[in-house]
C-alpha cells in the first residue's frame, strides 16, 4: 500500500483500543509512580468509547472523519489531561487531513505535525519537560525525514516515539502532575510519552 485511507485509520484505532486495554495496567503503573495513577484506565475508557462509536461511521469514511470522531470521543470520555491533549491532537490532525480520501507520506507528515502542534498549544509543554511532547516531537521529525513511503514514515515515527519515551526517564518533570515531585520523578518513564509510543507503534503495525 502506498497511501493511508479511512479503513486504515479505523483499523489503527481499533488496534489502539485493543492494545490500550491489554496494557492499561502498565500505563497506570507508570502514572502511579509519578502522577495520579489513572492514565491506563482513563485511556481505556476513552478508546472503548471510540470502539462503540466507530460503527456509526459511513462504510468508507475519510481519515479526517475517523480522526475527528476519535478526537471528540476522547475529549468527552477520558476525564484526565490525556483527553483534551489527545483530543486536541486528533482534532488538529483531522483538520490537516481535510477531506482527502487517502493520506500520502507528505499528508501523513502534515497530520502528525498538526497533532503535535495541537498538543504543544494545549499543554504548553516543551521538549524535555517529561511529557508526551518528548515522544511526539522526535516522531514527527523522523516521519519527515523518512522519505516518500507512508509505511517507512510510520515505522520511523514509531521507533522515534519509543526512544523518546525511554529518554523521558532521567528527566525532571516541568509540566503535569509529575512536576509536583521535582527530583523524585527522575528514573520513571512519562506515561503520556509511553502511550504516544503505543499509539504510533500500532499505527505502523496496521498500515
Amino acid at each position, binding site marked *: 500500500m502506498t497511501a493511508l485511507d479511512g479503513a486504515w485509520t479505523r483499523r489503527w484505532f481499533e488496534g489502539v483500543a485493543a492494545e490500550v486495554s491489554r496494557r492499561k495496567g502498565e500505563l497506570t503503573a507508570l502514572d502511579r509512580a509519578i502522577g495520579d495513577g*489513572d492514565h491506563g484506565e482513563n485511556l481505556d475508557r476513552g478508546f472503548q468509547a471510540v470502539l462503540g462509536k466507530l460503527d456509526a461511521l459511513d462504510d468508507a469514511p475519510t481519515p479526517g472523519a475517523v480522526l475527528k470522531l476519535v478526537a471528540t470521543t476522547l*475529549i468527552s470520555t*477520558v*476525564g*484526565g489531561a490525556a*483527553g*483534551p491533549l489527545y483530543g486536541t491532537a486528533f482534532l488538529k490532525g483531522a483538520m490537516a487531513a481535510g477531506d482527502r480520501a487517502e493520506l500520502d507520506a507528505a499528508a501523513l507528515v502534515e497530520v502528525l505535525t498538526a497533532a503535535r502542534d495541537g498538543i504543544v498549544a*494545549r*499543554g504548553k509543554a516543551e521538549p524535555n519537560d517529561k511529557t508526551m511532547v518528548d515522544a511526539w516531537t522526535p516522531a514527527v521529525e523522523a516521519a519527515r525525514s523518512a522519505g516518500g513511503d507512508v509505511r517507512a514514515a510510520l515505522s520511523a515515527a514509531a521507533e522515534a516515539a519509543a526512544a523518546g519515551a525511554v529518554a523521558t526517564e532521567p528527566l525532571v518533570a516541568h509540566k503535569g*502532575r509529575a512536576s509536583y515531585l521535582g527530583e523524585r520523578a527522575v528514573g520513571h518513564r512519562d506515561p503520556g510519552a509511553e502511550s504516544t509510543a503505543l499509539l504510533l507503534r500500532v499505527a505502523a503495525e496496521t498500515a
Partner: protein
Amino acid sequence: MTVGLVIVSHSAKIAEGVVELAGQMAASVAIVAAGGTDDGGIGTSFDKVQAALTAAESGDGVVVLCDLGSAVLTAETAVDLVDAPERIRIADAPIVEGAVAAAVAAQGGDALDAVVAAAEDRVAQPAAPAGAGTALPAGADTARLEVELENEHGLHARPAAELVRTAAAFDAAVTVEGVDATSLLRVLALGLDRGRRITFEASGPQAAQAIEAIEALVRARFGE
C-alpha cells in the same frame, strides 16, 4: 444580568463546596459546579464543563475557576469549541479564594475583565496610597476614619465583601490599613479581629462620601 462563574474541579465535592461558599456572598450570581467525571469519579468532564458554561452565561460572560492542570486543559478545550469564546475567561487564580473574590465582584456588577482581575487579585491599586507621598490629582480630596471593629467575628468574608462593594462604589481610592479596600483578598489577608482599631483612608473627588458611607457601614456592623 451579572457575569457568571463556572467552578471546574477534579472532585464534584470540591466544585459544589466552592459554589456553596462563594454563593453565600453573591446571591444573584450564577455559579455553576462542574466537578468530577461523568460517572462520578475523580477527573474532569468536558461535557459537564460545556453544560456549565451554557448554564452560567446570562449574556455578560463567564469566568472559569479551575483546580489542577487537566481541569485547565478541559476548560480550555471547551472554550475553544463554544460559539462565543471571547465571552469566557479562565482565571489564573486559586480556586477557592479566586471564586470568592470573583463572586463578590460579579455581585457588585463588575464587567468580565474586572471580575477576572478580582479573581486574579489584580485590582487597580489606589491612585494615591496612604502615606506613599504621591501627589494627589488636581482637585482631589482626602478623608480619613479611625474606628474600632465591633463585629463579633471581625472582618470575615461577608462583612469584608460589604466593605469592598461600598469602597468600589465611589470615585475615590480607598484603603483599609494601607491596603486596597476594593480587593477582597487583600482585605481578608489583613485578618482584622473584633476590637481592633482600623484606619480607612480615601483620596479622590468622592473621598469624603466614601468615608461617610464606610463609617455608616461600620456603625451598622456591616449588616450583621
